[in-house]
């Protein structure tokens, strides 16, 4: 069996445990392998963000644990967890992804600087990444001068910059028009195919879901459906 990049065991998250408890995640079980391109779908409030936060090490589960490449990150806290995220997980958020006072280039470089990568290497990689996301000529623009779609592309480039195990994207297209949304997804898909980069993203946009290789459906914090990647390679389109 292939080693899982992400391995979530019996993940539960209950918010407001001492007043009115909300079960945001209910014994979720999840294995994601390297190179997968997975969408997590479900209605608003179904627990998508909660699940992504758990596997991204942004929050701790109430029970269960998450292993990333064999490391139990649920046991990590404080700066150890922050450093783990820095070196293993790439993030793309719905909005306000970029540091507004830095240019696109500097935003991408920033993450490598935190990783203490030498300047020469950083510079080369920034140019390469800008090319990959198709924004070679926007490197010196600040986020405020870029369109929503361009900002998200830069965010993807930054997520790639740290050479993470996988990239997590929580509703990356929620604030984009449909053209920008499909363009962003196509770009991510291309990176997935060419670089074998693992992507996990949440969405409730059908067009986005249709591009996923694997779709996990959440309802009331439970995983109710998981279309296996094997079936897609069989050429059967399970998506409506």
């Amino acid at each position: 069996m292939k080693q899982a990049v992400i391995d979530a065991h019996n993940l539960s998250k209950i918010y407001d445990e001492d007043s009115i408890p909300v079960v945001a995640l209910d014994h979720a079980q999840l294995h994601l392998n390297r190179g997968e391109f997975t969408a997590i779908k479900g209605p608003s409030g179904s627990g998508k963000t909660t699940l992504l936060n758990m596997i991204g090490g942004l929050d701790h589960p109430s029970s269960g644990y998450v292993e990333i490449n064999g490391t139990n990150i649920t046991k990590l806290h404080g700066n150890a967890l922050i450093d783990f995220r820095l070196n293993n997980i790439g993030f793309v958020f719905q909005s306000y992804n970029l540091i507004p006072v830095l240019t696109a280039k500097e935003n991408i470089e920033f993450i490598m600087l935190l990783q203490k990568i030498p300047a020469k290497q950083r510079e080369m990689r920034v140019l390469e990444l800008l090319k990959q996301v198709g924004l070679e000529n926007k490197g010196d623009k600040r986020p405020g001068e870029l369109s929503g779609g361009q900002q998200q592309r830069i965010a993807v480039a930054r997520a790639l910059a740290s050479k993470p195990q996988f990239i997590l994207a929580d509703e990356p297209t929620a604030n984009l028009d449909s053209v920008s949304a499909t363009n962003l997804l196509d770009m991510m898909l291309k990176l997935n195919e060419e670089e074998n980069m693992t992507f996990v993203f949440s969405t409730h946009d059908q067009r986005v879901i249709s591009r996923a290789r694997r779709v996990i459906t959440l309802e009331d914090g439970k995983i109710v459906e998981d279309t296996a990647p094997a079936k897609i390679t069989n050429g059967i389109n399970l998506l409506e």
Partner: protein
Amino acid sequence: MILKIARRNIWRSKKRSLTLLLAISLGLWSGMFLIAFYNGMIEQRVNAAIQDEISHIQIHHPNFLNDHESRFIVPDAEKTIKLIKENSSVKAVAGRLILFGMIASPSGSTGIKINGIQTEAENKLTQLSSKLIDGHYFTPSKRNEIIIGQKLANKLKLNINKKTILTFQDTAGNLASAAFRIAGIFKTQNTPFDETNVFVNIEELDSLAGLKGGIHEIAVLLYSNNSLDSCLQRFKSVLPELEVKSWIEISPEIGITVSAGTQMVYIYMGIILLALTFGIINTMMMSVLERTREIGMLLALGMNKFKIFTMILWETCFLILAGCPVGMILAFITIAITHHTGIHLNNYSEVYANFGYSPVVYPNLNMDQLIKIIFMVIITALVSAIFPAQRALKIKPASAIKN
């Protein structure tokens, strides 16, 4: 890069940063100017006390300052004065005969200090003649002349050429009275001094008191206060049987004025800086809270807490460090100008004079104070930077990023 982010973050909320910059520079400006002004006032007071009243050094019989009895005279006073004159640091020296007694006019009487002075030497020492606002200085040919202060003249309703009676104890212990004619009326910056001191010719007072050439006090004016300590030591060693005192010892209240004044200025500065600290903390807290989401994002990406802390710390420090030079330069300019022109407190000159202060103040700031101010500002910067930075560390990435 963290420095770059911090620096650029300052300009995100231009209005707020400018307001804070303004507050810091104004605070520092006013604080430093206030200190300089206070310095000027104290220096003026001290200089006036030295120049007009006390001189730098006074020499007495060891018992005189305690008892003020007329028998405690300086032995061999003339020889001593000659000896002191030989010192190159000495600008002027004069002997005085001092008696405590009463002055009376038809409208009343009051206790006073009668200074029998060597008229020429005294004028070189305290420039008494330049302080006359009416009448003239002692005329060698005339007898029984007296110079009194304006305040006393008003109190006793005395005028030029009016007669007045001085009463005091002679060496034999008998009460002696003598009539004097008012030759001049003086006015110094120190009203209490004007009210309690009168001046007469030493020879006349001497013969009235029967002291036969006695001198109670030798006052020494130096060219500069810098040579005070060396002169003190020198005189103490050559005049072991006499009491040699500096102006600080003679007039401890002036010493207290100086030290209380120096403490006072730091309290002023402290209050200004404390107010600034609250302003800075408040502003930076707001700036941190407004950026909760962004800071959460940075934490999520992998910027560790130490770096976040440093970033906010730098932001605060940049703001303060940018405000300081502006405030300091403004302060230096204003102090330099007013130091040159002086500040005239015309409307309040009477009030100040009552406390012995001059109505014209020349602000100045010394190096020692400047270093202390800079030190205080740095402490302020650190203290006010720590709290907002601390606040940033409390941010949890998951809840900060929540849509």
